[in-house]
């Protein structure tokens, strides 16, 4: 018996190309050829901007006192301590100043040997224990200021109890110098030199070794400026969200500093130091009804039961003891976020995008197309990855256009509705914050679509998948407003709703104490960290979906 050679059968068909690009192309073809989906995606891309712009129209600030803190109200004048800074932004410019005129170039030097302070007695809500000692951002230092008008340009080098020596200028500028608190044992030497528009700040621990902290250019600084010593003591602010009511307290504080070795180079010979409050005197220590309190302007506040030492300057030889009640030199920070609120209109578009993401795979299961898909491309994980890329990219692109169109219009409408732009900035699309809002909106929608796709692959039913994702992404935002602070913060940290933090529309400054309540649309995580939480959910869901796709029959 002989055996011939057997030629194994080979199909004459060319093997199909199994690269990922073709998989992407086929998934894109599936998406764009279903008319309903394309219409739904265009609808979703339109819904977000329409909702946001419509909401901006009904978010009128006319009846909201927070919309314009400078405007007089029915019960009294506007906030006395808010001024308009050199950049057009609202600022707090309220402090005690010991100053001399400085014509032309020169420098001012001083040593700070002590900075103490305390929270003044006031309405303290239950469960709040204000910290003892001075405020971390109490300020004692030297300043060069264009004039004594609140809101004028300045540069300062200052010591703080909690954040070391800083150089600050024009309210928003802030650079760190020597760390550590001030005491007699570790005194801080501070120096500012002026050369034209340029102010340079230095600090030193011993008065002989100076280190440059930074340089500030104050555009349009007049020839004659005011230079000297100052003290300010910001309010202690605390807010806790409750169920029915929120506990909110603003406690007045005081700070006292001791300066010596004060010298001014370039001043008028023989000039003396003048003193005074910049901004309206807002806080006076002393009993309510005291004669001193009665003489004060209407917007001043009297605190305390006993008469405390008055704010001001006590000078003995070369030692200056300066005390101030309240005040700050800093950007004005609001807690109300109208832009963030109207951007919540994104949730309408989000539901549409979530529906699309879930249907993108659930429809294949319903029609049985999924079996054809897997027959053509047996590597199931790659199929789902291709779907995720297609739905993510399409959603991102469509939403980016929508958000970029909606945000400027919504900002204009808020502005014309009474929300003053000095407190509620109109971000340009190229600014970091504007970019964050627009790209973040598109990003959170894309991530929600991928999450919905994964849920659709796991549950295989569109209704269940859509509901699960909507409950996971949107309901935490609703519950976070009604729950007390603790659980509310955790909801916004752990659920994919954390990504909505990217839409916060008011600026935050680390040098200003601010309160963060979900009630005000504030998120506990940093915006991009919150986005990462949302991405982690999508990645975990996608991983689970791929695992189950491989394990289960289609």
């Amino acid at each position, binding site marked *: 018996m002989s055996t011939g050679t057997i030629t194994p059968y080979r199909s004459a068909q060319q093997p199909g190309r199994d690269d990922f690009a073709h998989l992407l192309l086929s998934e894109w073809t599936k998406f764009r050829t279903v008319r309903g989906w394309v219409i739904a995606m265009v609808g979703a891309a339109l819904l977000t901007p329409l909702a946001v712009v419509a909401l901006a129209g009904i978010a009128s600030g*006319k009846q909201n006192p927070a919309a314009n803190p400078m405007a007089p109200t029915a019960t009294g004048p506007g906030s006395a301590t808010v001024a308009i800074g050199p950049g057009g932004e609202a600022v707090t410019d309220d402090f005690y100043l010991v100053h001399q005129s400085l014509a032309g170039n020169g420098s001012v030097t001083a040593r700070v040997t002590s900075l103490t302070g305390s929270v003044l007695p006031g309405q303290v809500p239950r469960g709040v224990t204000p910290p003892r000692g001075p405020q971390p951002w109490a300020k004692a230092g030297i300043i060069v200021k264009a004039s004594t008008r609140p809101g004028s340009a300045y540069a300062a080098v200052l010591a703080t109890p909690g954040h070391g020596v800083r150089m600050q200028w024009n309210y928003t500028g802030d650079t760190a110098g020597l760390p550590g608190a001030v005491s007699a044992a570790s005194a801080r030497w501070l120096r500012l030199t002026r050369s034209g528009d340029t102010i340079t700040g230095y600090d030193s621990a011993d008065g002989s070794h100076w280190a440059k902290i930074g340089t500030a250019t104050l555009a349009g600084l007049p020839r004659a400026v005011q230079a000297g010593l100052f003290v300010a003591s910001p309010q202690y602010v605390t807010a806790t969200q409750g169920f029915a009511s929120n506990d909110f307290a603003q406690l007045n504080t005081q700070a006292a500093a001791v300066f010596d070795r004060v010298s001014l180079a370039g001043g008028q010979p023989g000039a003396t130091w003048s003193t005074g409050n910049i901004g309206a005197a807002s806080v006076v220590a002393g009993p309510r009804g005291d004669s001193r309190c009665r003489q004060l302007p209407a917007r001043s506040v009297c605190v305390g039961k006993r008469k405390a030492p008055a704010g001001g300057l006590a000078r003995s030889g070369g030692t200056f003891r300066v005390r101030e009640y309240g005040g700050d030199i800093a950007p004005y920070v609001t807690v109300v*976020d109208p832009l963030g609120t109207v951007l*919540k209109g994104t949730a309408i578009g989000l539901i549409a995008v979530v529906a699309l993401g879930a249907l993108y795979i659930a429809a294949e299961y319903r029609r049985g197309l999924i079996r054809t898909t897997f027959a053509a491309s047996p590597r199931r994980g790659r199929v789902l990855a291709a779907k995720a890329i297609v739905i993510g990219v399409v959603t991102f692109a469509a939403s980016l256009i929508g958000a970029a169109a909606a945000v400027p219009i919504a900002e204009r409408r808020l502005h014309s509705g009474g929300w003053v732009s000095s407190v509620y900035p109109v971000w340009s699309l190229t600014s970091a914050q504007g970019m964050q809002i627009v790209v973040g909106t598109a990003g959170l929608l894309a991530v929600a679509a991928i999450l919905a796709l994964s849920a659709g692959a796991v549950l295989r039913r569109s209704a269940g998948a859509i509901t699960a994702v909507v409950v996971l992404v*949107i309901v935490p935002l609703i519950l976070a407003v009604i729950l007390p602070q603790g659980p509310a913060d955790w909801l916004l940290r752990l659920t994919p709703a954390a990504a909505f933090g990217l839409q916060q529309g008011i600026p935050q400054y680390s040098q200003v104490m601010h309160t963060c309540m979900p009630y005000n649309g504030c998120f506990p995580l940093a915006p991009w960290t919150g986005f990462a939480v949302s991405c982690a959910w999508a990645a975990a869901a996608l991983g689970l979906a791929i695992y189950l796709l491989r394990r289960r029959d289609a």
Partner: protein
Amino acid sequence: MSGALRAQAGALRESVHAEWTKLRTVPSTGWLLLTMIVLIAGVGALATEVVKCPATCSQDTTKLSLTGIQLGQAAVAVLAVLAVSGEYSSGMIRITLTAMPRRLTALAAKAIVLAGVVLAAGAIATAGSVLAGRFILPGNGFTGAYHSEILSLAAGSTLRAAAGSVLYLALIALFSLGLATAVRDSGAAIAVMLGLLYIVPLLTDLGTLDPRWHHRLQEWGPMTAGLAIQATRNLKALPTGPWPGLGVLALWAAGALLAGGLVLRLRDA
């Protein structure tokens, strides 16, 4: 009773029986109802666990223990949407309408069965969350002092809030059923339904909107108006009274059922 009427009543009874058989033999029904009960009772228990007296004694503890309704209603909506959209996607609807050519009777039978099932499961869930509140709240300091009260269905307002929450769930089921009958596709129906429910509270909770619009939205939003039934304290602060609020939701449900009935009558299945 005239013969025609008796025949119609008989047809409805048979239709209800058929719908009941369909609903109870679909595995998703049990899962969804279980999810609903767990969500309502579980979230209610969690919400009452985190509140403390004397820090916040003047809480509306009844409303608080019923917080879970806000999540549980999503499961009810899915159940109601699937009851009709599921038939459209599988083609079952043509068999249903062949067996019961009076389409409105078929829709009425679906509504009756769904409402009955949701009322029963909702009663269990609501009773569970009130009971949880009754046992958890005294441990957190709500012992009856400082204007706090111990949850009891014997109190008129608590009974109204609890019974009203059960009715609320049934109305959500009818609303979703009507919407799904009009829209047919399950994905589209549930998306529209969840949008109508959740968008209004999301936007009005952050109090930056113009007060008139804020009030208007809360007054007419199906969820914000309907959940007014849960309030037992500070009723003057509500956009609508408890029962008128539930009435607003009933209007939404009636409107959706009307639209669904019209589409069912006029369009090919």
